[in-house]
């Protein structure tokens, strides 16, 4: 039985889903890379060449790359380094930096809202066993920003959801997300306990600063020393973000994380468009997004995927994982959640229709690695 609030929330989203056929498409590139011992940088070069190269996109520009480092680096699956299971691997990050630098990027800023901390992102990287100095030397102009709070800026940027937002009319983010010419989502090929899959779209949920959207965010304004995740605001809707930020449109209407998180993600990627989506699936985990999810296991899909449209890229990735990217709620991998890809498609971000997507390099059938098998 749907409550009145839930009904209001549902009808406010419905018209947007009707616009799906108009959603744009862009080519998606796939290459195989069996292990991190291979020449990952060369494989990435091939991946980007198949898209026509990066020069036109990044030359002379400031580029911001949202990487995926979910959860505390101390939490590990079978003692493995986080990059072998649920973080994007630093070799991939270094390789991306190298190619961006080679393509003429002026400033290369890697960002992530490091778990429950406002400290330097470099600290989290070191805690993950990464060699930060190597990353910095991969290209000139490499820098890092923890976007969980203000970081190096003095104010937050407000990014508005174009058209009718699902959850929040706009989002207050670290300025790194606005003060950039190019925005890249560099994600890991994984399942997600709440969203079914986490790829370049879901990666951007981590753009939300815990200072404003965290469990211990300030009531009136940001808490610049956040020490918690976004469960109460984002996942369950038990509280509003800090009053300084735009408030939830239908607060209290829905507390289901399987509804809320996909809708928030679709809002965020509409508000902060992704110019290049890169998904790393050399080694990863299946069954969830991190070691704290029961039943997760290591997998070695051995693929790298990139595309100039995040919805198209995630659609191809979802297919590579053995799922139908247009699957509705109730069907794997979206058994208990809404399909983020379709919601983003509803916002006009891109099309999740494999029939319309030009897949270059390795065909999906040859890259297929079933996550549910």
């Amino acid at each position, binding site marked *: 039985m749907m409550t009145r609030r839930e009904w209001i929330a549902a009808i406010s989203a419905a018209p947007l889903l009707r616009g799906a056929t108009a959603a744009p498409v862009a080519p998606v590139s796939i290459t195989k890379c069996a292990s991190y011992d291979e020449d990952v940088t060369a494989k990435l070069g091939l991946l980007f060449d198949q898209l026509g190269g990066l020069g036109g996109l990044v030359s002379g520009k400031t580029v911001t790359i949202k990487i995926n480092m*979910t*959860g*505390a*680096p*101390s*939490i*590990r699956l*079978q*003692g*493995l*380094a986080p990059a072998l299971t649920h973080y994007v691997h630093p070799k991939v990050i270094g390789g991306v930096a190298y190619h961006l630098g080679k393509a003429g990027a002026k400033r290369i800023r890697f960002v992530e809202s490091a*778990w*429950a901390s406002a*400290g330097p992102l470099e*600290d989290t990287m*070191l*805690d*993950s*066993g*990464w*060699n930060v*100095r190597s990353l910095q030397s991969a290209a000139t102009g490499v820098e890092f920003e923890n976007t969980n709070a203000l970081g190096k800026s003095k104010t937050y940027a407000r990014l508005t959801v174009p058209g009718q937002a699902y959850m929040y009319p706009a989002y207050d983010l670290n300025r790194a997300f606005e003060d950039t010419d190019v925005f890249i989502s560099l994600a890991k090929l994984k399942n997600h306990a709440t969203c079914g899959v986490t790829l370049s779209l879901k990666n951007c949920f981590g753009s939300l600063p815990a200072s404003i959207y965290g469990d211990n965010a300030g009531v009136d304004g940001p808490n610049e020393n956040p020490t*918690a*995740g976004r469960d109460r605001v984002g996942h369950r809707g038990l509280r509003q973000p800090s009053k300084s930020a735009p408030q939830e449109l239908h607060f209290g209407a829905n507390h289901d994380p399987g509804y809320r998180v996909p809708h928030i993600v679709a809002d965020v990627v509409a508000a902060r468009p992704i110019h290049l989506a890169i998904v790393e699936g050399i080694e990863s985990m299946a069954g969830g997004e*991190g070691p*704290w999810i*029961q039943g997760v296991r290591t997998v070695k899909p051995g693929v790298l995927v990139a595309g100039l449209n995040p919805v198209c890229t995630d659609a191809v990735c979802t297919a590579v994982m053995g799922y139908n990217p247009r699957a509705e709620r109730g069907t794997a991998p979206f058994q208990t959640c809404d399909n983020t890809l379709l919601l983003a498609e509803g916002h006009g971000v891109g099309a999740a229709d494999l029939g319309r997507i030009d897949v270059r390099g390795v065909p999906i059938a040859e890259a297929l690695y079933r996550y549910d098998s």
Partner: protein
Amino acid sequence: MRGDRCPRVLVCLALAAPAWCLPKPADWVPARWPWADAASLDLIGGGPINCLLVRPATAEFAAAAANGGLATLAVVVPTDDVLATVRGDLAAKVTGIALEGSFPAETIAAVRRAAGDAPVIELGPRSGMLAYLGAPILATDQGVWPGMAEMDRARAGPSGSAWIDTNTGFIRGMRAATGAPLWIANQPPTKTVVSAARYLEAIADAGMSGARWAIALDEDFAARLAKRDPKAMADWGRMMTMASYFERHPEWRAMQEYGKLALVQDPAKGGLLSGGILDMIAVKHAPVRPIAPADLKPGALKDASLAVNLDAGALTPEEQAVLRDFTRSGGTLLTGPPGWTDEGPAAGKITLDRPELERLNDIWREVNSMVGRRNLGVRLFNAASMLSNFLVSGDGRTAVLHLVNYSDFPVDNVSVQFLGNYKRAILLTPDGVEKPLQLYQTEDGWGADIDKVTVAASVRLEQ
């Protein structure tokens, strides 16, 4: 030490082991010896163990051990006919007596009288240790079994962090207060398969804090070792290598704990705990100096910038004056909430239950906030499954950072950032590796990277 003993062994064989050829008690490296046959002593050959805790003691075994330059301590427990047992053990020519458990004071006094010049070691509860400060060795049979605590699945989450069961907080506090040689003589958990790695962790847990774990084997391991099972022999060899590592560096025991953070804690109260404030700070890898209130004298807080005084009401006016001077000279002092007292563990316990932990949380939140992510001497990265101990020599020219990994997996790529103007960093490992580390400048000092830590490693810093 074994090295002191060896040149004398041949002489001893001929002279039936006079007491002077045995190592001094302070140098004893103890093991509970589950065998009574002299042939079992072959297992020791050339290794660091030089003191065997035996029960029962036989004259034949004691003589064989003494002939090998090994001290023997007869273990006596409260349920024995104590004085009769002690006299029998002494007649068997054991080197000394180990009283394991709680004994009435008069019984202990009677045993000491009966023992004469033979050492009597108390292996009793932690709470009784300070009563025997004059003993050649302070020891206890109470300890937690070191290792990663099992994560509570119900609370598993992305913020979950590993907790490490350790005796280091207790050892460090007790050693800082007494400076005495210290043994932890707890035994492996029963009905549990104990891996070789866990034994190595137990040895290193005590060793990095300047104490010795009295090696004790579970029944299965002892049985396999008695049969000279190849796998058990290999594991035993690794244990001896680990024990030797700490014995090869007696200078480490003479070094002082270092850190910009000082913790004033009564060794007879909170200092008796495992899992108390000192261990909680250690899990954050913040170097901290434990200081007993009695040691709060001018100069005790030299080089410290932060201090935590757990039990403000328990200090004498003179001790309070030292802390007052510390704050007047720019130091930051954190005291417990009003009315908060350091009560230490409940009788017979060495860990805290949930209500006690919640009570400790009152002060822990403040300590955690104060420590933050500052470099208080050394900062460690990628060391979640590790504990560390940072020591400096008396002249301050050499420092040693001990690292112990409590997980079942080696840790790769550990980064260390430290304050101070050190010119060289050398990595030492139990298997004898001494490798220079490349130093690089960091925001507030110097850094070095360690490729891999299996169970234990140390970084020696030299000015």
